[in-house]
């Protein structure tokens, strides 16, 4: 009742974010001795390798071709030699092809560059093709092919480009770095996307702690391309596209949800940065955070860098107990530190032992309803949790809409009984998908 009106139902107010000057800093990370490049690094089909073991490749050279619509091409992040191509398990246990590349010693990194593009002089189709060729994927966490995304948006008649400048996870600081260090790239990328979609309306949404930086950008360079700014009160998980649109609508933005298409700030900036220089995607801007690091901050990390190497570069201490891909709310704890940084990686957190006091044992659900209030999709996590405990998975989907869960973790975050709600839901959904896949396989036979 008192204070800001929530812009979407539920969500949680995480500890307030404070920005420092160091947040805008971006450090370049060195090459590891071996880069491991999976042929599928994003949400989509795998690409097909076009190199052989033993091939010498140059930075930016095509390593794998995209054949399916949802696939993206893969380029060499460094000049060096292809050591090996083998099938290896990815994070979910499925086998995927991996190209192992040994970067050449020394600083002699030759590079293939293409033609720099200027949005004012290129046709929309030319830009679209270039975006596809650069191997870009969504960098806000969704990690689908950006090319495919734009094709669909164009077909769907998108009229407004919404730039999602909201950090997906607490502890990340990509937004200030992009706003302050990559302002021109953001504007270039926006121009290109606007040109592809043949529209002129755009909007940048940030949370209040980034309002100042965003204001500067819009004032200095954004005005001439019609970019307007919306500063929203912070609330997790406002970064989820659907919730962001709700938030914008209830904060007075003149927005027709059906006409809006949301791109993360990181994606827009990367489009501008790569295409205006004729580059392709070979590295990834990440916030490395957590109390297990001596030098946390933003790093530009070459694709394929092993997590262990990245952590060491950021000054990981010996007492790191848990490493998260992504962030603390949705991030997956990694089992093996030799796994590489890929295009879908959005952040890396190293948690020192003892910092998060031992996880309390879950207690019985007291039906307080905190999770119901917190759920941004307005599900009923308490009821779902009780059903999950009984193994009544079917009812979770048919009666209680588990398929709409966005796995943001708000329910688990607020639960005073420490019930691993979202963890249970994830398991139930995984099982559901497996069953569907099984059923799907049996139909043709």
């Amino acid at each position, binding site marked *: 009742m008192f204070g800001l009106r929530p812009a979407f139902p539920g969500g949680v107010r995480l500890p307030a974010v404070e920005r420092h000057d160091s947040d805008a800093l971006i450090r370049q990370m060195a090459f590891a001795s071996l880069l491991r490049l999976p042929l599928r690094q994003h949400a989509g089909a795998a690409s097909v390798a076009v190199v052989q073991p033993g091939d010498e490749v140059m930075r930016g050279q095509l390593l794998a071709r995209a054949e399916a619509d949802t696939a993206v091409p893969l380029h060499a992040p460094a000049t060096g030699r292809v050591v090996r191509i083998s099938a290896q398990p990815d994070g979910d246990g499925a086998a995927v092809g991996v190209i192992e590349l040994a970067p050449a010693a020394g600083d002699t990194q030759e590079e293939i560059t293409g033609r720099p593009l200027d949005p004012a002089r290129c046709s929309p189709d030319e830009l679209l093709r270039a975006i596809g060729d650069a191997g870009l994927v969504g960098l806000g966490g969704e990690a689908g092919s950006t090319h495919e995304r734009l094709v669909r948006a164009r077909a769907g008649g998108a009229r407004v480009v919404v730039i999602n400048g909201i950090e997906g996870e607490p502890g990340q600081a990509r937004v200030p770095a992009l706003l302050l260090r990559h302002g021109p790239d953001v504007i270039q990328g926006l121009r290109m996307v606007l040109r592809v979609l043949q529209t002129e309306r755009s909007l940048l949404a940030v949370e209040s702690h980034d309002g100042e930086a965003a204001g500067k950008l819009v004032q200095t360079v954004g005005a001439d391309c019609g970019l307007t700014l919306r500063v929203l009160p912070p609330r997790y998980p406002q970064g989820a596209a659907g919730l962001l649109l709700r938030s914008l609508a209830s904060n007075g933005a003149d927005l027709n949800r059906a006409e809006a298409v949301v791109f993360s700030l990181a994606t827009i900036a990367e489009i501008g940065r790569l295409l205006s220089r004729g580059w392709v995607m070979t590295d990834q801007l990440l916030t490395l955070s957590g109390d297990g690091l001596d030098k946390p901050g933003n790093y530009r990390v070459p694709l394929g860098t092993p997590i262990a190497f990245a952590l060491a570069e950021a000054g*990981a201490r010996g007492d790191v107990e848990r490493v998260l891909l992504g962030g603390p709310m949705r991030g997956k704890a990694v089992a093996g530190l030799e796994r590489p940084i890929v295009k879908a990686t959005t952040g890396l957190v190293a948690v020192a032992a003892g910092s998060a006091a031992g996880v309390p044992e879950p207690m019985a659900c007291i039906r307080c309803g905190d999770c119901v209030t917190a759920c941004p999709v307005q599900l009923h996590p308490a009821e779902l949790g009780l059903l999950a405990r009984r193994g009544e998975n079917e009812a979770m989907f048919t009666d209680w809409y588990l398929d709409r869960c966005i796995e943001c973790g708000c329910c688990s975050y607020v639960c005073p009984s420490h019930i691993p709600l979202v963890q249970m839901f994830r398991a139930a959904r995984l099982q559901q998908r497996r069953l569907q896949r099984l059923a799907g396989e049996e139909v043709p036979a």
Partner: protein
Amino acid sequence: MMPSSHLLSLRGAPHLHADSAVPRLMLHSVIALLPVSVFAVFLFGLAALATVAVAILACLLAERVCGPRSALGDGSAILTGLLLGLSLPPALPLWMVAFGAFVAVAVGKHLFGGLGGPAFHPVLVGRVFLQAAFPSAMAQAWVAPLAAGRATELPATSLALPFLTPDAPYDGISGATPLSALKAGEAGEPLLSLWLGTVSGSVGETSALLLLLGGLYLVYRRVIDWRIPAALLGSVALFSAVLHAIDPERFPAMMTALGSGALMLGAWFLATDPGISPTTRRGAWLYGLAIGLLVVVIRQFSGQAEGVMYALLLGSALTPHIDRWTRPKPLSEGVEE
């Protein structure tokens, strides 16, 4: 120095947790009840202390017997005992107190699967059982407030042997609680002493003001949903004001109706129990409203002087239905991406 992979911990996300935990909620509730408990001991002396202590001990014992060992630590048994003790007449034979506590925990809580399971508040189950089992004791075991010698001796009735009628008669102050005096047509207590609580009544149901303060503390600590007491007290105020306007002779004024300790205890500490109240905010309003209406109806139109206990039980029976009506509709459109 890098950690080796096999030492990594692999919990699922989220890796953050809000600063809330069930034992903490229980602790705050106990803290919120301290002022009124201390005041009760001041008012009724040893009788109040013994009643509350026996209720808590009996609840802990019952919890130990019926529940899993780990459940002793969550503090819910202590809170149950404290609330039950506060809701009983001070001179009630102590064996009845223990009996009620046992019913509350064994039947009211563990028969329904323990913490989070009960469809009715265990305290209310114990209280309503005692009320039905020993109506004369529950209606007469009162102690006059601020009686001389209260600090050193227990009322004779308190020490009755288990399952036997006490030797001494109950003090049976005429009218006992202010509301039953009103119902019987006697002159009511002055409004001020009603709110301050220098009146006869159950151990912890005398001072509406202290209970109100305790409730506000819980709201401040975000332990309870403020909507429930707000709706409950609001609807009691509204309906009793309307009735008073219709017939001032027969129906008490609004402030008198609100100044009942039982109402305050019920509204802030019992109705708000998460297990028996609706999960949604809209539901909380409806729930409070329904209980308030029931309180006024039972007080004014049935044979009972105080209807809070019955209204709360009936209200929690409504909870599943309220939850059903106010169930949130999941968002459907494009949340993902």
